[in-house]
């Protein structure tokens, strides 16, 4: 029974990683950059919910909606101000800027909210599920996380494959120049990608902080890095890859927490990343990209 309970909570944690990893992988696919600030958008979203629901006392759903809207706006603004002027710059310059943005968000939150850890009130009101005569206990947060993630992933897959803006995203990530010649507004498509990625990060933030209710300015950093690991694991740039990678990574993390050592689980996750990079750097579903001169 232990195994099953680790597995279920692993899938739940993995779904959150998958939601965050989607943001990484979509941005990487389209803008060919690693958006370091993505993890901090999660933290930002969680703080919005904390302010609205805990401090102001409004219903949780208002907080979640406000958090999605604010994160979306932040995602678009960050892209416009910091990344857009660097489209033609070296990847090192873009990377340093992204780290600057991430650091800016963390420290702005530190100045506004202070460094102490806040206890986050769960936004989920589902009851706890008891199976097999109470041997397997699944919390409402776990169920909600899995359900919400499945709905979002299905919706996102449909959006990308069936709608015009979604197909535009695929086209831009394939070939920016050709997409532009076909009449696709590249700048708007990139903005849309950042907007969707950040909205997903807001949802992930709400779910993550409901399950692990400790909120501080560095809350987003570690899940952010792990989600990136998940994106690499699944094959960076690939949307189904991010989903599979996220869930696998969550399961690996929780199983190693249960059976090996809870303190070493972070290290184990990164050993996975290094093994993936050694054996198959393109990930499970990634395509091998040939560099052209």
């Amino acid at each position, binding site marked *: 029974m232990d195994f099953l309970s680790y597995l279920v909570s692993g899938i739940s944690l993995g779904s959150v990683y998958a939601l965050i990893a989607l943001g990484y992988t979509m941005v990487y696919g389209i803008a060919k950059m*690693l958006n370091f600030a993505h993890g901090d958008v999660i933290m930002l979203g969680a703080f919005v919910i904390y302010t609205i629901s805990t401090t102001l006392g409004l219903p949780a759903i208002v907080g979640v909606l406000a958090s999605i809207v604010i994160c979306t706006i932040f995602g678009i603004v960050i892209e416009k101000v910091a990344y857009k002027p660097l489209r033609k710059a070296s990847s*090192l310059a873009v990377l340093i*800027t992204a780290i600057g943005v991430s650091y800016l968000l963390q420290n702005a939150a530190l100045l506004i909210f202070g460094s102490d850890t806040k206890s986050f009130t769960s936004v989920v009101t589902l009851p706890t599920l008891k199976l097999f005569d109470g041997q397997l206990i699944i919390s409402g947060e776990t169920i909600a996380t899995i359900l919400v993630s499945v709905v979002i992933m299905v919706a996102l897959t449909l959006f990308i494959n069936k709608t015009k803006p979604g197909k535009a995203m695929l086209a831009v990530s394939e070939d920016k120049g050709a997409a532009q010649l076909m009449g696709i507004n590249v700048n708007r498509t990139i903005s849309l990608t950042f907007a969707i990625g950040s909205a997903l990060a807001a949802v992930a933030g709400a779910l993550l902080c409901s399950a692990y209710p400790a909120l501080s300015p*560095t809350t987003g950093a570690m899940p952010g*890095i792990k989600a990136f690991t998940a994106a690499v694991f699944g094959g960076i740039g690939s949307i189904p890859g991010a989903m599979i990678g996220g869930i696998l990574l969550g399961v690996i993390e929780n199983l190693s927490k249960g059976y090996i050592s809870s*303190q070493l689980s972070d290290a184990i996750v990164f050993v996975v*990343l290094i093994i993936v*990079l050694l054996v198959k*750097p393109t990930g499970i579903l990634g395509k091998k990209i040939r*560099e052209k001169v």
Partner: protein
Amino acid sequence: MKKKRALKQTTKSNLITYAMLAGAFVLVEILLSTGNISYMFKGLLVPLCYYSILAVSLNLVVGILGDLSLGHAGFMCVGAYVSASFSVMFQDAIPQDWLRFLIALLLGGLVAGLFGLLIGIPVLRLNGDYLAIVTLAFGEIIKNIVNLLYVGIDENGLHVSMESSAALNMTENGRMIIKGALGITGTPNDSTFLIGFVLLLITVFVSLNLINSRTGRAVMSIRDNRIAAESIGINITHYKLIVFAVSAFFAGIAGVLYAHNLSSLTATTKNFGYNMSIMILVFVVLGGIGSTRGSIIAAVILTALPEVLRELNDYRMLIYAVVLILLMLANNNEKLNHFKEKISISNFLRNRKNGNTLDKEANS
């Protein structure tokens, strides 16, 4: 003709760097001997050395290799912990301070360099984004693991545990060396300004010679065009590994200096975490990516400045972040670059001397 002139320029630039260091050293020594130096500034002398070493060594990765390492503080942490454990362990066995410190320095640097190799082997084959994320993860994990580590020594040898000091099962003569989150206490204070300065000088010497060597040129050609470099037979991973390991080695040396400057050593976010790695990156970026001299100047200014302007301390990290973003945006702004070229005095003089504008590119 032209080649000779280019060679002279690098030599000249290197000489300016050494002269600057020598001048700074003489100035500090004069101030120290006349007593015209505040207590606070005296306490900053060794930190200035190890921050400069960190900046120069990170500049090797960011400026010469063109990749980003966010785990520099992690390598520093490795160097600090390895050397401090060694010094505490052999404090009585090796009574000569200089010999013990020399071994501690070599040990700290070599182990940090070894970690650099271990991380570099899987990651340096890939493009730069992976290095950033893996080194960042490495820095955080090293910090966490060190905080869980309990090491003790008794007549049966070393005992290591990751749970508690009781789990070490030592005899009553046992001595604790690393006490988990409490770190290492009783490290001998072997770091002095003179040693720090000599180490900085060695770091600068190795760094400048590496940059101007065959290896350095190979690495820079990889940075500028990976495919072209590979097609003329340069072994990319091999050269990248050399530079990365050297950089990690010197970060470890800086860690040794750091550990032996304080009597108790703990690993926190502030000294060995992400914040530290970013701070070193700010030194390099502000000093001008690729410029050894600039890295040192930026490290000195940014270390001394917050001590002088204490009111700004709360906003320091915020300012670092803004500096990173604005510098990158300004560097890649076409209009601004054009303007800079227009007003550049050295360009103006050179153009007048040569009577042509062909050299314009040389400065960009």
